[in-house]
Each structure stands twice: as C-alpha cells, then as structure tokens.
C-alpha cells in the first residue's frame, strides 16, 4: 500500500482510472463502428463517420493521458509530497474540456479530426457555423491548460525536492561525474514529461488560440505550415508522453514483484535524456510529405525517429527482460500486462520507425499503416500499462486476487489486438488510405478482419473494467496516510 499518497489524491486516482476505463470502452465501440462501416457491415453517413472519428481520436489520446497521469501521480507521491488539489484541478478542467468537445461534435456537428489542421476549422465554420469549431478548439484549450497547470506544479515540486529538472534527469551524474545512482525512475520520467509535454502544450495552445482568432476575425491569419508544425509538435509529443507517464508503473511494479532493484544508473539516465531530446525533435516525421519544409529538417525527422527507438529498445524493454529473467516472479494480471506492454511498445516502434523512413513514407504516409503502428503501442503498450496498474492498485490498496478469467481476458485482448493491428498494417501495405469513410472493395476484407478483432477487444476490455470496478469494493475507505515520509 502506498501510504505516502494523500487519501484525497488516492480517491482522485480512482476517479481518473474509472473515467479512463469507461471512456475507453466507448471509444473502442466508436472504433469498431468505423471499421464496420468501412467493411460494409453497417452503414453510417459520412458525416457521422467523421464525427465518430473525431471523437475516437480525441477521446483515446485524452484518456491515455488521463490514465498515464494517474500512474505518474500515484508513484511520484512515494518520493515527492504532492498537493491533491492540483490533481483535482486537472481532472475538473479535463471534464469541462471533454464536455465542450462532445458538445462540439454531437450537438454542433464538428468533424475536423482531433488534429484540427489549420485552416480546416475556419473553413468548416464558414460552411456549418462557428459554434462547433469554437466549442472544440476552446475545449481542447481548457483541457491543455489543466495539464499545463499540473506540469508547472510538478516542476516546482521537483525543483524543491531535487534541485531542478536537470538534476531530476540526472545531469549531475551524467555531466559532472557525481557518483552513485540517480533519482527514482518515477522522478526521472516525470521530469522528462514535464519538459516535453509543457513544450507540446504551449505549441498546441498557440495554434488553438490562432485558430480561434481566425474564426472570430478571418483577417487574422496564420501561416499554414507554421500551424502544422505547431499542431504536430503538440499532438505527437502529447500522445508520446502518455507512454512515458504510464511506463513508471512498469519500473515500480516489476521491481517490486521480482524483488530486484531497477535503479537509475548512468545508462538509464542517458537514455531518458535522449528520449527527452528526441521526443521534442521528431514530430517532423509527420511533415515528411511537406516538400516545402527544409530538407535538413526532414532528414532529422528520419534519423532521430530511428534514434528515438534506441532508449526503449536498449534500456527500458531490455531492462524489463533482464529484471524478469530467472526471477521466479509471480505471474498475475499486473505483472503479465506490464511484461506484455513492453512487447507492445517495442512492437509498435518497429513499424513506426519503418514509416519514418522518407522513401517508405512517400508511399505509406496517411495509409492505414499509420494507425497500425500507433494502435500497437497505444493499445498493447499504454493501455496494457494502465490496466495493469488498475489491477495493481486494487491488490495493493485492497485485496483483489488473480482469477482464471483474468488470464482468459489478457489472452483475448492480446490475441485480437494482434489481429486488429495486423489488419491495419496489411491494409497499409495494400495502400488503403486512413480516415476514409468508405473503402474500395479490395480494402474491405481487411476492414472486416479489423472489425471482428475489435469486437473481441471490446469484450476483453469490458471484462478488465468489470474486474476493476469489482476490485474497487475491497479498497478500504480508511486509508493510512504517512504525512511525513514523502520527500518534500
């Protein structure tokens, strides 16, 4: 049991996880509906397809960030004293933002995608009225402000506890030859996420504000290329950071289960510093088909996208394999999902890296190859980490036990997720475009395979969720709290 986390924060973590699980199921159903429509098994109007697509993308990235934040807060509380008010503020602003986004989509028919690529929202506003675009863009802004406030607060706490974000990232060990181990993995990862995600959110806020102003007064315009840079600097980094938050659980829990230390040695710290730098740089691989971008910038997009695979492949995933190897670790829901999540992360990185190769991107960009790779590391990576954490939370804070149905649901989830991402990657291989409401006959079979896989994934996720809520009943209300033990 984590006695260093404030009881109110612990209850808020439960709210975060509950919202994540419930919204996830809804968004998965939306995803299945899109595949069923592309596979000609149901019939949606294009307007509804694109509305659902917009909700699916926005919702999935949002809840991945929400679940990742719950993990970050829970484990960081072991090392840094945190005020639960900040966690609550973020949650409230998140809910307000989500409500505005839902109103935009389902009341005012906004369907410009979660990437809201400038000047599309203004163009849609001209044709269908400004309310949808204004609600969506403002909702995203509110949501982003919530995260930004939280990161500023966390930056202040790490600065107080560790002497700055640089020291939290182990710079005194890397550059000044300080002996010993670095800060706990949770602190290192948090510092990385603060730096990268704050940058992302500022980029996002800039393009959101510019888009809003453009709708209010069309005379205020923005360079579309600059807007695209800012949009992907936001979207790419924000989505990536969900996994850098969630992986904290893997470090903490696998170390606990194997009774082996997972310390931040120099290689570990170098890897996380590289991830910090590369994550900020590689969003340009989203612009490889914008030939007007300077060539050097696009080559950086390729080379550093390759390099960004190294920290996870060589340090984090390899470290997970090493810590589990001959450990006689107890295999239960949490340890199984954390172990498999490392597989999912690296397995998703492989087609991502291949797609970041410019000559490949030239014939695969915006095909279904793209959702193929990011569904691998989001679904089999981030979400596996979050569900693993839900079970871990219930076992450590309550008394949930692993049952046969948990083994069944994990097998179901991973088997059919392999089917889903396999169908996407195959469809990308035969040039099926992504984000198309209707598909040509030669692409339909892959859509149908994806839809059937998706139905079973929803079933597995529903079992995970029911087990999580059932397990919550054993989480006591009289939660011990050690006011003094957390570092301050």
């Amino acid at each position, binding site marked *: 049991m984590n006695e260093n986390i404030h009881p109110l924060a612990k209850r808020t973590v439960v709210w975060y996880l509950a919202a994540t699980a419930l919204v996830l199921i809804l968004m998965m159903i939306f995803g299945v509906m899109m595949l069923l429509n592309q596979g000609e098994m149901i019939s949606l109007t*294009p307007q509804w397809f*694109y509305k659902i697509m917009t909700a699916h993308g926005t919702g999935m990235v949002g809840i991945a960030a929400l679940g990742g934040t719950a993990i970050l807060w829970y484990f960081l509380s072991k090392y840094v004293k945190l005020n639960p008010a900040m966690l609550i503020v973020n949650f409230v602003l998140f809910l307000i933002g989500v409500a505005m986004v839902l109103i935009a989509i389902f009341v005012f028919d906004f*369907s*410009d*995608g979660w990437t809201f*690529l400038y*000047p*599309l929202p203004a*163009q*849609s506003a001209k044709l269908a009225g400004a309310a949808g675009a204004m609600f969506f863009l403002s909702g995203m802004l509110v949501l982003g402000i919530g995260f930004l406030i939280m990161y500023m607060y966390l930056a202040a706490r790490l600065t107080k506890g560790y002497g700055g974000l640089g020291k939290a990232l182990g710079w005194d060990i890397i550059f000044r030859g300080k002996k010993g181990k670095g800060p706990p993995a949770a602190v290192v990862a948090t510092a990385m996420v603060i730096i990268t995600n704050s940058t992302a959110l500022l980029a996002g806020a800039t393009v959101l504000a510019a888009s809003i102003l453009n709708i209010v007064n069309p005379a205020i315009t923005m*360079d*579309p290329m600059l807007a695209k840079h800012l949009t992907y600097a936001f979207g790419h980094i924000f989505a990536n950071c969900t996994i850098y938050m969630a992986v904290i659980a893997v470090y903490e829990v696998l170390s606990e289960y194997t009774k082996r230390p997972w310390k931040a040695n120099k290689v570990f710290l170098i890897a996380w510093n590289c991830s910090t730098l590369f994550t900020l740089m590689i969003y340009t691989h989203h612009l490889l*088909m*914008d*030939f*007007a971008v300077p*060539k050097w910038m*696009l*080559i950086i997009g*390729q*080379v550093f996208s*390759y390099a960004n*695979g*190294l920290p996870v*492949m*060589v340090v984090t995933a*390899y470290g997970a394999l*090493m810590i*589990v*190897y*001959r*450990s*006689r*670790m107890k*295999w239960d829901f949490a340890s199984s999902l954390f*172990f498999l999540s*490392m*597989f999912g992360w690296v*397995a998703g990185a*492989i*087609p991502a*890296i*291949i797609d970041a190769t*410019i*000559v*490949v991107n*030239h*014939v*695969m960009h*915006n*095909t279904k190859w793209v959702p193929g790779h990011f569904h691998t590391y989001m679904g089999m990576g981030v979400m596996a980490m979050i569900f693993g954490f839900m079970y871990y939370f219930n076992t450590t804070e309550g008394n949930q036990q692993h049952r046969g149905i948990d083994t069944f649901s994990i097998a179901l989830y991973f088997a059919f997720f392999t089917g889903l991402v396999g169908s996407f*990657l195959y469809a990308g*291989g*035969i*040039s099926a*475009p992504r*984000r*198309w409401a*209707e598909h040509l006959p*030669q692409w339909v079979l892959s859509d149908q395979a994806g839809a059937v896989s998706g139905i079973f994934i929803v079933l597995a996720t529903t079992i995970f969720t029911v087990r999580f809520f059932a397990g919550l009943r054993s989480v006591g209300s009289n939660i011990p709290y050690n006011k003094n033990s957390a570092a301050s």
Partner: protein
Amino acid sequence: MYQQIALYATVFFVFLLALAFAFVYGESKRSGDYGSIQKKGYRIRKFYFLGLIAVMGFASVMTLGRLPYDRNQAEATGMNEIKIVKVTGIQYAWEMSEDRFRVEDQVQFEVTADDVTHGFGLYNEKMELVAQTQAMPEYTNTVYYKFEEPGTYQILCLEYCSAGHHVMVKEIVVEPEGGSL
C-alpha cells in the same frame, strides 16, 4: 516495392521480438543471481546496441540517397522534356492543367490547395500508392513521377479535409508509348 519491404521487415523484427519475450517468460520460472544476470546482460546489450546501430545506419545509407525531394529532380535533369502540371486541391476535387499522359512521360506535379490542406496521392491502375505530397494553401510542393505503365491512374486525397474527403478522387489516363492523347 517499399510497401512489401515494410511489411516483411515488420513481421521479421516483431517475430524476433516475440521470441525474446517468450524466451524470457520461459526462463522466469527459474531463479538466478541478479548480479551475474546483470553482468552478462550488460555485456550482451553492448552487442545488441551495436547491432541496432548497424541496422539503422545501413537503412539510412540505403534510403537517404533516394529522397523523393531530389532524386527524381536529378533524374529529370537528364530527360529531354519534363511536363509541368499544375495541381490544385479544393474541397472535394482536383483541378489539373493536364490529365492525359503517355508512358515514359516525366511529370513535374506542382501541387497546392485553394482552401484547406489536402493530400495528393497518386495511385496506379492496381491501386498501389506510387507517389504523394501534401497540397497546402500558400505553398507549392513539387513531386516528380515517371509513368512507366499505361492505364487509368487515380489521385486520391490523403489528408483529411472534411466530410467529402473520400470522394475527392480524380482519374488520369496514361496511354501506351506512341498512343494518341
């Protein structure tokens, strides 16, 4: 070609990855001294790291010399004639200054957009994506393509541009060499 390479490479590397995870899972039921496991693991990691660098370095060397931004441009300089075709994307159609070509034609597509960002995706008769670039307002992206097979090609929009995105398709005809236009 690149689509097949991407698929086979992904299957191959994911298979290797799955083998590694399956091996470690199998070994997890035994116990061992973590100190010696770490020592051996770090030694293996050095070779693993160098192996990855070698694979990535090889891929970079093999591909960075063939960039679509300048490779065809370089080839084009040796050609007798380049057809310049102006392409403009607008919700939900492609306007082109020319849409009939002959095999062996080297075409320079100068692509832009009038309203929002679109994606210029050139598909051959087998519906394989053979070239693409973005169509962005205020910018012109130049993409080169040499038609080597006759048939009906299609330009599909590959950047989401609102509710009619999937109907933004234009057919272009490529006649056999010596055929009439």
